[in-house]
Every structure is written in structure tokens, then in C-alpha cells.
């Protein structure tokens, strides 16, 4: 029996869908069978981020209403052995599925897959309640900004009220240079305020935009710190104690100079 993990954030635009795609692909690269579920009905994105938008025949709503079997709606990602996508419907709205149906679908998927990763829509309305209904644990994605952390705090409260205790935090789009200059909240500031455990920190990386343009998860790229961060997050989900990335060691001359001078 597998496990269902919901990836949520409250605020939109913090990189939830990118995180879902890369964590899912990362777990698949580590040899696990993974089903990604796009719970953002009416505004589906996960298919596009994964580059699978042209292969959709059936979707989550079709499965929930019995228009097709679950297996018919699952799209196999040919690039990642063991990675599958259950896309959201684009033409319906959030009321087309209820929490009970989501719970059943997740339960069904868990029989076949090691991990079921649910990409939660932004907000805390019905779409959120649907997405968390079948989850065993939760990941909250935030960025080092006041609005994003505030929404993360609200979502953590709602997750705990729903029985999803101790959600884990991913801090996305951290800019080490700005942190160093005192112009961005650092990891400790955020953890201190939210009082949750850290699952990983993903640095801002332009290559994420390139990989999203192409519809390819970045996670298998070798020269990207963000990719490495996502690989580490996947390993931590499996329970491996992977140390945090040294975000300073990206070969920047100034950084190396600072290190040499003992200012690092």
C-alpha cells in the first residue's frame, strides 16, 4: 500500500506545480512507482509542466463520475520509468468532484503506486478541501516573501485542523545573494515563524523556466542547484537524512573569494 502526499501552499505562484512535477519525477528516478494527481480542476497546469498536455484523453472528473476506468485516465510519462499523471479536467469547475470521491481515487491509486502526489490548487476553498481529502501527509511550499509565508501559516493551521499533522516545508526560490545582503528572509527566519520542519530549500534558478518552457522536469539535470535540491527533497521523503545544499558553492568568484577571506 502506497502513501498519498498533498503539495499545497495557499498562495498561488510559489512553484507548487513545478515542485510537484520535480518531486514526483525525482521519486520515480529513485525507482518508485509514482502517480501525480492534478487536483486543480478548471485550471490544469501539471500536464503542461510535464509536457504531457497532448496525451490527455480522460481526466480526474471522468474517473470520479465513472466515465472511464482509473487506468484509462492515467498517462504514462515515457521519460521517467514508473511516473504517471492523472490530469485535472479543464472545462469543469471545482464542484465537479467532492472530497469523498477524491478519497476513493487516492485509495485506489495507493494500491498500485508507492507514492500518490496531489498538486493542490491555490486557495483554501473547496479545491483545497478536495485535494487534501485523501492525503496521508502534506508538504507546504512557500517563498521567502511576507504574503507567501502568511498564507503558508494559514494553510498549516487548516491542514492540522484536518488531521494532517506536522506538514513539512519547502522554501522555494531562495536567492542566497539577497539573503546575504539582508534583503531576503532566510531559512531560519521562516522556520522560526512557522514552527514546522524543513523538507528542503530550492534556490532560484533560471533553468527552471527553460525546463518549464520545454515541458521537462529539471530534476535529472546535472548542473542545476535547483535540480539537486529537488533530488534531495525526494530522498528526504523516502526518509534518508540528506544534509541541506550549500547554496553558496555555485562557483561564483566573489563567493569563493569571501570564503578564502573567511567571511563566508
Amino acid at each position, binding site marked *: 500500500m502506497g502513501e498519498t502526499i498533498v503539495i499545497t501552499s495557499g498562495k498561488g505562484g510559489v512553484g507548487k506545480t513545478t515542485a510537484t512535477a520535480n518531486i514526483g519525477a525525482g521519486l520515480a528516478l529513485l525507482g518508485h512507482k509514482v502517480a501525480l494527481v492534478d487536483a486543480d480542476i478548471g485550471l490544469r497546469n501539471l500536464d503542461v509542466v510535464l509536457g504531457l498536455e497532448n496525451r490527455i484523453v480522460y481526466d480526474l472528473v471522468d474517473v470520479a463520475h465513472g466515465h472511464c476506468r482509473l487506468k484509462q485516465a492515467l498517462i504514462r510519462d515515457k521519460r521517467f520509468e514508473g511516473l504517471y499523471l492523472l490530469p485535472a479536467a479543464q472545462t469543469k469547475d471545482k464542484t465537479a468532484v467532492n472530497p469523498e470521491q477524491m478519497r476513493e481515487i487516492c485509495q485506489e491509486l495507493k494500491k498500485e503506486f508507492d507514492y500518490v502526489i496531489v498538486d493542490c490548487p491555490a486557495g483554501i476553498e473547496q479545491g483545497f478541501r478536495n485535494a487534501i481529502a485523501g492525503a496521508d501527509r502534506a508538504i507546504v511550499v512557500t517563498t521567502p516573501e*511576507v504574503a507567501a*509565508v*502568511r498564507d503558508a*501559516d494559514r494553510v498549516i493551521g487548516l491542514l492540522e485542523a484536518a488531521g494532517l499533522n506536522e506538514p513539512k516545508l519547502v522554501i522555494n526560490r531562495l536567492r542566497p545573494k539577497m539573503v546575504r*545582503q539582508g*534583503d*531576503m528572509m532566510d531559512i531560519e527566519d521562516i522556520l522560526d*515563524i512557522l514552527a514546522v520542519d524543513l523538507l528542503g530549500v530550492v534556490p532560484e534558478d533560471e533553468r527552471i523556466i527553460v525546463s518549464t518552457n520545454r515541458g521537462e522536469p529539471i530534476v535529472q539535470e546535472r548542473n542545476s542547484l535547483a535540480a539537486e535540491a529537488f533530488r534531495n527533497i525526494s530522498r528526504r521523503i523516502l526518509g534518508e537524512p540528506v544534509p541541506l545544499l550549500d547554496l553558496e558553492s555555485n562557483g561564483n568568484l566573489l563567493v569563493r573569494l*569571501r570564503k578564502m577571506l573567511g567571511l563566508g
Partner: protein
Amino acid sequence: MDLWQIVNRLLSRSGAGSKEIARERLRLILVHDRASVSPELLEHLKRDLLQVISRYMEVEERGLEIELASQEDTVALVASIPIRRVKRAVKVAPV
């Protein structure tokens, strides 16, 4: 603050880093967000408070008032608890 930060701050046109501002604003926002508690929670808190205080003194239960008062930068728990009688001998468990 290490030397590097000081140098950075001197070089940056904006003066002090905006991180401190962000952190302080966030702290205040969350104090207010988290203070909007449900009446149900307040009712539980009232009951627990009564239980604890009754160990030390007799209180007038009906006169008890409790609320969260928010001011600009703080939220305070304000409780008004009329006391009938303070107990003469109180058994206190060793701390």
C-alpha cells in the same frame, strides 16, 4: 552582523536590508491572523482558566469575561475574573 554584511550595507543604496522589515511585518501580521480564534476555542480556554484559578481562589463564574484585545502591534488576552474568596491554604505541587 559580520564584516561582510556591514560592508554590504554601506555599499547598498537602500540603507538597511529590507529583510528585517519583512520579518517584523510578517510577525505582526501573524499575531493578528492567529488571534482571530473561534468562539468555541475561547469557551474552552475559559473553562480551563476557571479550573486552574479555582485551585487558588473562589471565583464568580458568571462574571467572568475573556477576550483578545488587538492593538497596533500586540494582541493581549484580557480576562476579568471576579473573585469571591481567596483560599487560606493552597496545596501547591512542587515545581
